[in-house]
C-alpha cells in the first residue's frame, strides 16, 4: 500500500499544478479534483495509522513542463489508471469503493476538458501581465515565489501529518485552518508562477520536517518564520508598489493574513503550555 499512497500523493500534486496551467474554468475543476485526491491521501493515511504502519510523504519528481494542457490531462488519466490497479493493496473496502466511485466521475470529466496552449507557464520570461517590474523587483518576486510555494506545500503536509497523528480536537481545529490557509496561499503563488513563466512542482519533503518530536518548538519556529514571511511581503509590496497598485495591495493582504496564522499558532502554543 505504500506505493499506492505515494502515487495518490503524486496524483494530487500533478492535478493541483496542472490547474495552474489552465486559463479557463478547467482550472477550478482541477482544483476541486486535487482536493478530492488530497482527501484520498488522508483516508489512506488514516488506514496506515489505524494499522500502526509507518509511512512517509516521499514522492518522485512530478514532471509538468508541457506545451499543451492535454498532455498533462492525459498524464493525470494515466496516473489514475495506475492508482486504480493498486487499490487492492488497501484492505479497507469502504475506502477503495469511494475512491473508485470518485475516479469514475473524474475520468469522464477530464476526458471532456478542452485543450489549451500552456507553454508560456514555463518560458522563464518572468514578466507579469500588465505590470512593469524593475529587474530588482523581478528577481525578488522570483525567489519569493519559489521559496513560498515550497513552504506552503511543506506547511500543508506538516499540519496534515500533525492532524492525522493527533486526537486532540482543539489542536486539530487549528491544524485544519492552517492547512486551508496554506492551500489558499499555494494556489495564489502557483498561479503567479504560471503567469510569470516559472512554474514547477515543489520538491519532496525530507521526513524530519514533518516527523518532529517537539510540537512546541515547531510552533515557536513557525511563528518566527511567519514573522520573516511578513517582512518579506512588506519588502515586496514596497518594491512593486511603484509599478503595480494591485501587486502592492496583494502583498499587503498576504502580509496581514500572516497575522492570523501567527495568532493561530500562538493559540496552539498557549494550549500546549497549559
Amino acid at each position, binding site marked *: 500500500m505504500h506505493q499506492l499512497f505515494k502515487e495518490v500523493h503524486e496524483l494530487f500534486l500533478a492535478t493541483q499544478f496542472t490547474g495552474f496551467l489552465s486559463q479557463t474554468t478547467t482550472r477550478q475543476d482541477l482544483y476541486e479534483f486535487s482536493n478530492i485526491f488530497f482527501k484520498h491521501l488522508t483516508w489512506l493515511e488514516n488506514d496506515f495509522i489505524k494499522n500502526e504502519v509507518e509511512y512517509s510523504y516521499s514522492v518522485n*519528481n512530478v514532471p509538468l513542463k508541457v506545451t499543451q494542457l492535454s498532455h498533462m490531462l492525459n498524464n493525470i488519466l494515466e496516473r489514475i489508471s495506475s492508482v486504480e490497479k493498486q487499490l487492492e493493496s488497501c484492505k479497507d473496502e469502504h475506502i477503495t469503493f469511494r475512491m473508485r466511485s470518485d475516479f469514475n466521475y473524474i475520468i469522464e470529466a477530464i476526458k471532456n476538458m478542452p485543450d489549451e496552449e500552456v507553454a508560456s507557464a514555463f518560458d522563464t520570461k518572468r514578466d507579469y501581465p500588465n505590470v512593469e517590474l524593475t529587474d530588482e523587483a523581478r528577481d525578488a518576486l*522570483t525567489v519569493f515565489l519559489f*521559496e513560498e510555494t515550497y513552504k506552503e506545500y511543506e506547511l500543508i503536509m506538516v499540519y496534515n501529518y500533525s492532524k492525522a497523528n493527533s486526537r486532540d480536537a482543539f489542536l486539530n481545529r487549528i491544524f485544519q485552518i492552517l492547512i486551508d490557509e496554506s492551500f489558499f496561499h499555494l494556489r495564489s503563488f502557483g498561479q503567479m508562477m504560471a503567469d510569470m513563466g*516559472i512554474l514547477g512542482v515543489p*520538491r519532496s519533503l*525530507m521526513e*524530519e520536517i514533518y516527523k518532529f518530536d517537539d510540537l512546541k*518548538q*515547531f510552533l515557536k519556529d513557525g511563528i518566527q518564520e511567519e514573522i520573516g514571511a511578513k517582512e518579506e511581503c512588506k519588502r515586496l509590496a514596497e518594491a512593486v508598489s511603484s509599478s503595480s497598485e494591485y501587486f502592492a495591495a496583494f502583498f499587503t493582504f498576504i502580509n496581514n493574513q500572516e497575522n492570523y496564522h501567527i495568532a493561530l499558532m500562538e493559540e496552539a502554543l498557549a494550549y500546549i503550555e497549559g
Partner: protein
Amino acid sequence: MDGNEQLVKHMMDPQNYGEMKDNDAIGMGKNPKNGEKVAIYLKVNRDGEEPVIEDISFQAIGCSTTIVSGSIITSEARDITFSRADELISITLGMLDNVPAEEAACTEMVALALKASIDTYLEREKDSEFPMISYMINNDCTPKEESEDAPTV
C-alpha cells in the same frame, strides 16, 4: 541563455533531487546555526582503478540557493572519479572566499555534503559499519539580527 535564466531553470526543475534508497554512502552538510542541511547520496562504481560516482542525488532543508547549488554541483559530480570530485569541491569552496558569508553558506553546505559522502564511502571500505559523516559549514547565512533566535524547521 543568460545566467539568471539558467538559475531559474534549476529552481523550476532541480536536477538529481530526492532520496536514493540503494545508496553506497550518504554524507551531510549542516548549518549548525539554523538547522539547514543537505544530504548527498552516492552510488559508486568500483570497477576501475579509482571509484567513480555512478549516480548521485541530494535532499535539503534549506532555501532556493541551496537547491540551485545542489542541482548544479550534483550534475557536475555525476560520472567523475573521486579525485576529480575532490577538485570540484576545492574549486567550489575556493570560489566562495570572495563571496559574502550569507551568500556562500548554501553552496558551502552542498560542497561539504559531497565531501562527507565521499569520505563516508572511503571509511566504509575499511569498516562497513562506519556511520554517516556530517560536516558543519563555516559561513553563516543567517542575518545578524536573527541569528540569536533562528528557526530550525
